[in-house]
């Protein structure tokens, strides 16, 4: 099992070396390999660089820290287009410790519920009880659980430390749900 993870990690590292360096930050649409440069409509589209270079910086994914952009009010994405659906924010961190030699994982409900609805994760992706889902790294890397979003739209899985952010040697609290009002 850990051999497989090691193999995947090697591959991820290889991929991240091979992909976009600083020079080709936010490629023009006509050169991104995905858009058809012969499409007359391409000129109507906004270039990623024009929008993304004005947002708080990051080093992976869209090269934008979306959490910071939202918290600082640099972007104000709408919470609803129907009158009676509202965003419901929950401040509840969960700490996971079945991480082998890696650091513990901190899952912050707050950063997630600022973007997502409870039903996006419960009960479809995750049971509403700490530990009940049985999340495994290999499944995440295969696009399940956290990997449904991380690796597709939210920051990519190459960023191990953003999830594995808790040093087991200095962590003194208890594993699982954290007291409300802890670190966001």
């Amino acid at each position, binding site marked *: 099992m850990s051999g497989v993870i090691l193999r995947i990690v090697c*591959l991820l590292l290889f991929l991240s070396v091979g*992909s976009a360096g600083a020079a080709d930050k936010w490629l023009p649409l006509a050169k991104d*390999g*995905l858009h058809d440069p012969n499409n007359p409509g391409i000129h109507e589209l906004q270039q990623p660089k024009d929008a993304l270079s004005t947002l708080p910086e990051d080093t992976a994914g869209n090269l934008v820290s979306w959490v910071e952009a939202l918290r600082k009010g640099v972007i104000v*994405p709408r919470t*609803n*287009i129907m009158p009676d*659906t509202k965003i419901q924010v929950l401040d509840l961190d969960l700490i996971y410790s079945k991480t082998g030699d890696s650091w513990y994982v901190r899952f912050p409900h707050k950063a997630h519920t600022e973007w997502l609805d409870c039903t996006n994760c419960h009960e479809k992706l995750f049971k509403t009880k700490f530990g009940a889902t049985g999340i495994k790294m290999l499944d995440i890397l295969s696009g399940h659980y956290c990997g*449904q979003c991380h690796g597709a739209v939210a920051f990519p899985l190459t960023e191990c430390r953003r999830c594995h952010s808790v040093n087991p040697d200095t962590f003194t609290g208890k594993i699982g749900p954290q007291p409300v009002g802890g670190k966001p």
Partner: protein
Amino acid sequence: MVLALFLLTLEFVPSATAEYGDVVINNQSDKAGMRPPVFPHWFHRIRFRCKVCHADLGFKFQAGGNQINMLKIIDGEFCGACHNGEIAWSVENCDVCHSGKPGTPTQVHGSTVQKLLGAPAPKPDNAAAKPDTTSPKPDKKK
């Protein structure tokens, strides 16, 4: 181990340059002689939270998994909930949505899964269930 890594690496075709989170939807476009539509997450998430689309409008988390077509869009479903001339410009701007290179398969650009498997990741329809043994695991691809 070294051989496996080598084989895995070979499967990766380096074309991944487009913006992270761009989704190509091509269930029917090629067959209909249209360029496949490209949906940019970065552009929309500046304007809307995920929940607006994925909870309120019912978009499933699966590229190509929503059976979108023009009839539904014109009826106000999916893209048409906003691209109706009110919240955003309306459907007559065909080229703005249908902007992908012809022949590009349905995919999420920048997906780790896609890179690992060398192909768009097939997902079980019921993402709720624990991943079963039929779900694609990188180590099985030799």
